[in-house]
């Protein structure tokens, strides 16, 4: 199971449910940024199922011939949220504060799905909060991390004043403070999942994909902050 880092907690729980329905089956997960997983699959890493936070990375895997276009299924959505360390050292209270000079902001790199979505959301805030907003926020970026959990870690350690992650990551790290991003400024991440052609056990891979889209799995995803399909 190669899955986007943001799916870590939810998929581990769903995996346990799947294992209890399929005695003798043991799932192994590889959680990382979708772009990293895509490269690993393209370089021949043995994977049965790929769950990506962006259709771009799934498309690349399909184009490279590792998944059938018809195998690709949308399964959950996610939204963005601003996270702050528990002590909120910079005293942030609203989105506009992100542009304050000298703030230490951590984002995911632009080629990581959440990094791309974060920049899209900043562009939308730019039109709402006045031109130059996105530019000054991006000027506060002190590090571009390789996946969303690295952003969470840097904020959790208190090394950064703020970070932009998925709602689900904020739920998985309850010690963090958050600033909500209103729907009109937010971006919806559409997750896709597919059983891969080189799967060790093709029918098992397909049944996992089905299970991940089942009502059982949906209630777990909802608990971890993921949204339903539109």
């Amino acid at each position: 199971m190669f899955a986007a880092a943001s799916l870590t907690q939810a998929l581990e729980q769903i995996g346990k449910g799947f294992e209890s329905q399929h005695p003798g089956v043991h799932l192994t997960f590889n959680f990382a940024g979708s772009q990293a997983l895509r490269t690993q699959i393209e370089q021949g890493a043995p994977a049965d199922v790929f769950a990506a936070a962006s259709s771009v990375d799934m498309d690349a895997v399909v184009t490279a011939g590792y998944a059938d276009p018809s195998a690709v299924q949308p399964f959950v959505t996610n939204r963005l949220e601003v996270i702050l360390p528990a002590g909120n050292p910079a005293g942030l209270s609203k989105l506009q504060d992100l542009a304050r000079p000298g703030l230490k902001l951590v984002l995911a790199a632009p080629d990581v799905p959440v990094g791309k979505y974060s920049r899209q959301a900043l562009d939308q805030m730019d039109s709402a909060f006045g031109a130059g907003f996105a530019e000054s926020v991006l000027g506060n970026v002190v590090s571009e991390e390789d996946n969303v959990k690295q952003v969470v870690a840097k904020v959790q350690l208190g090394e950064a004043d703020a970070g932009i992650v998925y709602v689900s990551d904020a739920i998985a790290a309850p010690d963090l403070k958050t600033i909500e991003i209103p729907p009109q400024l937010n971006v919806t991440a559409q997750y896709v999942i597919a059983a891969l052609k080189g799967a060790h056990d093709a029918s098992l891979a397909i049944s996992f994909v089905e299970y991940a889209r089942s009502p059982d799995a949906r209630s777990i995803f909802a608990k971890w902050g993921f949204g339903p399909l539109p």
Partner: protein
Amino acid sequence: MMTHTEASELASENPEPQEGLLNRFLNDGRSSWIFVLPGVVLLLLFGLPLLALILRASNKTFLEYALSEQALHALRLSLVTSLVTVVVTVLLGTPLAYLLARWKFRFKSWVELLIDLPVALPPSVAGLALLIAFGRQGTFGPFLSQFGITLPFTSAAVIMAQTFVAAPLYIRAARIGFTEIDYQLEEAAHVEGASPWQLFREVMFPLAGRSLTSGAILTWTRAIGEFGATILFAGNLEGVTQTMPMAIYLGFERSLGVAIALSVMLVGVSTILLLLTRRLDRKH
């Protein structure tokens, strides 16, 4: 002490060794393959990946990638930070190596252990430890911020990470260099009334010069290649903390071309630096 010429005269009294690996393999018969074949397996493991990297890079786009803005930023940052690391290491490490080589004191073996540890530790442990110690919320972070210093996500953090993992190589080499110097020279200098500083500057430092230089080059190659400690302690931002190894790791996911171009450049730089140390060692 035996001089170089004496040593080679001694060696030439022994029967002439057979020249050429192939001759040996063919003439010595049965048992010689035990020494040749296992080695070949390892040499292929070392050589083939480097060969593949160079083959993949040898096309028209290499220069384009090598001269891309990201690659040049990473190259410049790597050169600047690693050179600062070498300067800091030589300035602080030479006196330390001198003490370890020429002085006797309590807890010396503990100091030596502390110096050897960074070499044995995985760099990720080094990065985490640096972050826990000197991060903004780290053990000594609040103390540092009283002076307006925050280290994570800065080029200074890159240099600290490189020094942590690479400086011990210089200290080791320098210690050996100083240890090899004949004690009679030291005594002679004392008799002539030389101060400890004069002894160091005029006798010890020049005599250990080659060891110091080759140690510094080793530290430089290690610093230029540092990755694990840097990504944890310094983060990743182009032009500020994104060194060549970091750009290679991220380029692997973004643009394989930049990653391969930078890798070949690093192989080249490391080869040149190692050739330099070999030359120095041979003259020694």
